[in-house]
């Protein structure tokens, strides 16, 4: 049997379209298959490993000038935590509030906001990159996390630092929607990793995470935990929250957000 050029071309075109439609449906199926998603998710390890190699000299993220500041820095995620204890603290200007530093440390302690502000401060103008794609530039002033951890004295088995926050991003009020984040010691001791209490020269606003938020400048926005109440040194992440090391990580996002 021979096909004329025309019908042969039509056959190929419709075949290609059908194949395209099938592969689209196939990719949607693969997007729902947990085993396949686990497999392609392993690329995260390759990304983390290669970035850690490239960043082994601990270079700083770019710091900008005041003229580069975003005219309006978009508040994102929680902008007003509903937790009653948090709201009560906010009403008093966080005068009775204290940051807890504990977990796998020799000397757990807590500090008031005034005590934190009395410690040596670092100010940096950096770019905040949201996982959605937008960026905003802001100036942050705060205490280096590394200094706090050294003061507390990490135990040898401490591998991660977990930030427990006051906000619930989801509707649940049983703690399962409570925001938290974590970094490993490589990022915890980076000079630009600070717990910031001021933004653009002003006390940190509630919409931006008052009284204290994390800045871990070489990662995306969801790592920059707001409303930090407690800093805990831990050995493993799988027994905290959903076990993936953070609120968004428990909802499918990568723990390493350097990309």
């Amino acid at each position, binding site marked *: 049997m021979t096909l004329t050029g025309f019908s042969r071309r039509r056959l190929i075109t419709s075949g290609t379209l059908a194949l395209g439609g099938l592969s689209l449906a196939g990719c*949607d199926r693969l997007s729902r298959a947990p085993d396949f*998603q686990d497999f392609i998710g392993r690329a995260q390890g390759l990304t983390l490993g290669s970035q850690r190699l490239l960043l082994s000299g601990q270079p700083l*993220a770019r710091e900008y000038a005041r003229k580069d500041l975003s005219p309006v820095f978009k508040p994102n995620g929680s902008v007003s935590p509903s937790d009653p204890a948090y709201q009560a603290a906010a009403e008093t200007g966080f005068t009775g509030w204290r940051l807890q530093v504990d977990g796998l440390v020799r000397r757990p302690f807590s500090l008031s906001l005034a005590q934190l502000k009395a410690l040596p401060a670092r100010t940096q103008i950096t*770019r905040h990159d*949201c996982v959605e794609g*937008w*960026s905003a530039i802001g100036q942050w002033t705060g205490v280096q996390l590394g200094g706090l951890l050294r003061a507390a004295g990490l135990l040898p088995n401490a591998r991660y630092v977990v930030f427990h926050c006051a906000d619930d991003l989801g509707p649940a009020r049983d703690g399962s929607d409570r925001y938290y984040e974590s970094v490993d010691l490589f990022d915890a001791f980076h000079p630009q990793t600070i717990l910031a209490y001021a933004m653009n020269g002003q006390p940190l606003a509630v919409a931006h995470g008052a009284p204290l938020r994390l800045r871990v400048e*070489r990662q995306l926005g969801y790592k920059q935990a707001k409303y930090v109440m407690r800093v805990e040194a831990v050995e493993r992440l799988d027994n905290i929250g959903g076990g993936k090391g953070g609120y968004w990580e428990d909802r499918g996002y990568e723990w390493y957000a350097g990309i």
Partner: protein
Amino acid sequence: MLERRGLRAGPKMGFRMNQTTAQIDVRPSAPHRRRAQGREVIHRHGVVVRVTHWINVVAVSLLLMSGLQIFNAHPNLYWGQYGADFDRPLLEMRAVGAGTDHPVGVTEIAGHVLRTTGLFGVSGGRGGQPEVRGFPRWATLPSWRDLATGRRWHFFLAWVLVINGLVYLLSGVASGHFRRDLAPTRSQLRPSHILRDIWDHVRLRHPTGEAAKSYNVLQKFAYIAVVFVLLPAMVATGLTLSPGFDAFAPWLLDLFGGRQSARTLHFISANLIVLFVLVHVAEVFIAGVFNEVGSMITGRYAIRTEAGR
């Protein structure tokens, strides 16, 4: 051992020719068709080119679609270091009347507002009802809104693209494929030759005989642009979007004019690759889809000899 590719007639061609099935088709044909057609089969694509080509087809297609999923999380583009909701975008896809029965999809480019319902801003959701989204369901991976899964696909495939690309580039240099087959010859670069080649393309005429054994000059320009400019630009602008990589190579921010500029350039380069693919696939159909696709699978490529004209 890698086989010698017979793209250009060289001293070795005589040897190759003896191995190929050069033949003259002398079957009687319909009165209005060509009287006789000479047919010669040559070895056109090496195995590395063929394998990396098809891996690239899958990787680039899925990178594009997962990229549009990521784009849809914030379907705006900006220029400069920063850019968010309160800043002025270069391009914005949005919905007017979201939440009503008839939302209108709108795309704004540099101040020009276009109605793009059905394509950008608003398009059919799962049940066909209008849904507010940048690119439509059929263009994104996965089809539903899921940034985390889109990113997982994208970064997995980015590694596939980079590793596959490195294999292709190293092999292209080592085997002499780039020098022999992609670099335009001196005579091809003469303006008169380029103009004639453009005219041939406009008339959809394709070379036969000896000329068909090598890529024509526009084809070489297109491949060089994709291999050495567009795909590397995709990787470089993509890496500039990574806050981690930026700390390692802050000069990328200066090169592209900022992270948001890099994001815009990433989007533009992706569109140029789509444009290349559309022309490339159209040319495959015009030049003969079985022969062209077959040659990228088996390596064997049939050319019509001058005797057939």
